[in-house]
């Protein structure tokens, strides 16, 4: 009982101070290494499983491909070039050019119980990641760092209810606060005189975690009530959170 109470108090104290407890740091350091391995193993297993499932079709395709082998050899040089410019890597490289001090990281884990929209990345303070740093990918805003450990960090996605990002509607420069709804983003506290439309692009405003102008998403629904102080809009995030891979942690 005493041990359990002591552990709980340590956790609560750390949560209040906003710093990770030594228990969290030790555990995440140890588990982070295994997570990286497990994540890589999972990807490999998924690829292998996909190959097995597609085996009959691949066999049929293989016969045709043999006939076209010579033509493909001619295309080989072009394909090698295409492979070397995998979309994700190329996109991250483009983002890196815009943010040269950014830290490239890979997603290695998720919220264990799926209660919040949090992912774990494979870079921590040893790599220069800092608390509250913004995280983006080539498509737009991913989230911000909420916990930093030596070798891993936790990123709160913009779709989480706890996430609050200053945002601007690009067309009219109307300000609002982008907060998560679990699957999408809601733009709140937009002035009533703003003429929001479906399809409007929402970007970040200058803030602690992000520079201005990073894409958050596109307006899909406007909530305008007469007599209300503000209006709101539902925003479809520009980032596909279903298959989050490499991200860029912004250095401020």
């Amino acid at each position, binding site marked *: 009982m005493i041990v359990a109470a002591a552990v*709980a108090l340590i956790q609560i104290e750390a*949560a209040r101070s906003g710093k990770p407890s030594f228990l969290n740091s030790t555990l*995440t350091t140890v*588990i982070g290494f295994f997570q990286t391995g*497990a994540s890589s193993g999972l990807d490999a297993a998924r690829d292998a499983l996909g190959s097995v499932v597609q085996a009959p079709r691949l066999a049929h395709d293989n016969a045709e491909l043999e006939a076209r082998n010579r033509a493909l050899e001619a295309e080989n040089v072009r394909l090698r070039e295409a492979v070397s410019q995998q979309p994700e890597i190329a996109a991250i490289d483009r983002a890196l050019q815009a943010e040269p001090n950014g830290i490239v990281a890979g997603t290695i884990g*998720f919220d264990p119980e*799926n209660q*919040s929209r949090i992912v774990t990345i494979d870079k921590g303070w040893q790599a220069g990641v800092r608390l509250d740093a913004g995280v983006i990918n080539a498509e737009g805003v991913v989230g911000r760092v909420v916990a930093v*450990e030596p070798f891993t960090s936790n990123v709160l996605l913009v779709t989480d209810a*706890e996430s609050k990002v200053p945002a601007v509607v690009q067309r009219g420069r109307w300000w609002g606060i982008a907060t998560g709804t679990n699957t999408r983003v809601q733009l709140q506290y937009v002035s009533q005189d703003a003429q929001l439309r479906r399809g409007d692009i929402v970007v970040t405003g200058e803030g602690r975690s992000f520079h201005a102008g990073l894409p958050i998403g596109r307006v899909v629904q406007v909530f305008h009530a007469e007599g209300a102080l503000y209006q709101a809009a539902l925003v479809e995030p520009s980032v596909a959170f279903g298959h989050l891979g490499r991200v860029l942690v912004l250095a401020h």
Partner: protein
Amino acid sequence: MHTRVPGRAAAPPALLFDPPAWWKVALVLLAVAIAQATIAKHLAFREAVPSFVLLLVLWYGFRTDAVAGLLFGTIAGVCEDALTGSTGAAWTISTAIVGALAGRTAGTFISESKTWLVPYAALATIARYGIYAIVIRAEGQTILLPAMHAHALLWQALYNALIAFVLLTFVPKTGVSRVGLR
């Protein structure tokens, strides 16, 4: 040599547990925590993910007692809080309490058969989330839309119960072996 005292009822059979070696449990917990943070998300069904950690805590609690269940639940909860990074002690406290309750239930008729254990897993999922939500609120954090969470929670309870049923049916070792009843 034991002799029965005339006029007195025979003593109830002793309650003996067979807890697994600590290092084995530690390794399994490590593996389960990693699976929870990497694989579980890919098994999501209607926003609900299976809770391997909770099932392990229940299993350990049923094989030990309240104190051991509490301690193991605490350790498992710390792992989940560490992996989440922003829940403070919510999983630590909730998992510890569920572990202690499982330990307290060990050796009773509840831990005797699938009929009780399967719904127990579902109820434990809901109870654990309830405690988690209270602690999260006490920590001043936001809980997502209640309706959405309730929906996912019920699916998770069903999911965990299904996994418990499959394990108890096809993996005999997951059954709780003990001597005597409380």
